[in-house]
């Protein structure tokens, strides 16, 4: 399966490395092993998981924890809107849509969108499932390993493992060829820190909406010549 092969090419290593970071953070904070590992499989979104354990650590109220981790994972809405239509043509896959969407991560989303045009209607589902299953397994394993390694790794290794995650995504996104996506990335990158200063909770959804909408219409106005 090509999804499995693609997963082993890159995502597996990056997902494990980031989740090693998360596992070791959870151990430091005092989250139990089972909850830390389970959160990777059930929440399956690192910024939300980090918000969960860090707010738990400072004793934030339950509702505040749920709200903050939910907001940190709001990107799943536009991601699901843009990816799920790819599976509509295959009824055998489409009927599992509410389960399939739980396997979506930035990784599986970006790679599935990229590969979709070359995959047929009936190959997309298996591709996505293969990629998602391997990535999730790697994430769960990484969390467990990180939990046990906590405190044993020197700072410069742990911090480099954490740094790998944004670098992977920055260069994965930068290698995109579609003009409207590239413009959205550039506008978003400029607005991101500015809006974070205005509102750490609500800044990011606004950045996405403004950057994405501006890029979409600019691209339309610039006319043909994309891809």
């Amino acid at each position, binding site marked *: 399966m090509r999804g499995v092969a693609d997963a082993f090419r890159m995502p597996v290593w990056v997902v494990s490395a980031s989740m090693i970071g998360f596992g070791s953070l959870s151990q430091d904070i005092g*989250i139990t092993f089972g*909850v830390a590992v389970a*959160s990777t499989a059930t*929440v*399956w979104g690192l910024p939300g998981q980090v918000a*969960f354990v*860090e707010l*738990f650590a400072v004793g934030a109220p*339950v509702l505040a*924890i*749920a*709200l903050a*981790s*939910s907001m940190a*994972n709001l*990107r799943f809405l*536009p*991601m*699901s*809107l*843009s990816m*799920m*239509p790819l599976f509509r043509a295959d009824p055998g896959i489409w009927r599992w849509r*509410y389960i399939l*969407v*739980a396997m979506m991560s*930035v990784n599986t989303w970006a790679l599935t969108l990229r590969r979709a045009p070359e995959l047929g209607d009936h190959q997309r589902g298996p591709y996505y499932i293969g990629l998602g299953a391997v990535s999730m397994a790697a994430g769960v394993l990484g969390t467990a390993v990180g939990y046990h390694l906590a405190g044993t790794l020197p*700072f*410069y290794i742990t*911090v*480099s493992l*954490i*740094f*790998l995650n944004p*670098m992977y995504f*920055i260069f994965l*996104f*930068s*290698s*995109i060829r579609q003009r*409207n*996506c590239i*413009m*959205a*990335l550039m506008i*978003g*990158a400029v607005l*991101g*820190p500015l809006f*974070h200063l205005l509102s750490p909770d609500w800044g*990011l*959804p606004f*950045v*996405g*909406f403004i*950057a*994405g*909408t501006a*890029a*979409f219409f600019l691209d339309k106005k610039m006319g043909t010549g994309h891809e």
Partner: protein
Amino acid sequence: MNEMALWWLLGLVTAATYVWRGIGVAIVARITPSNDFTQWTSCVAYGMLAGLMSRIMVMPVGILAETPLVDRLVALAVGFLVFFAFRRSMLPGMIAAVGIFFTLTTLHAFGIY
């Protein structure tokens, strides 16, 4: 907080995250999304992700915040130089950026730089 309460909290956080995924599916199951709609939503997603990544670079939280800003930016800049030198190929760019960052933090750790 005891173990049982922590599991309930995880359930709540899981549901609160799944809501976004689920709403997305519910919407595309009810409308027939046009190509423009799908393009626009992926632009919004990319805009959000780029905003998140650049915020992590400039104002990180957690242990990344303990590294100097200049280290992160130098690593990123070198990564982009290598990325473009290899005709926009992601792997060389990523390896260069992480390699530079690892070297700089290791040098700091041993008090060399």
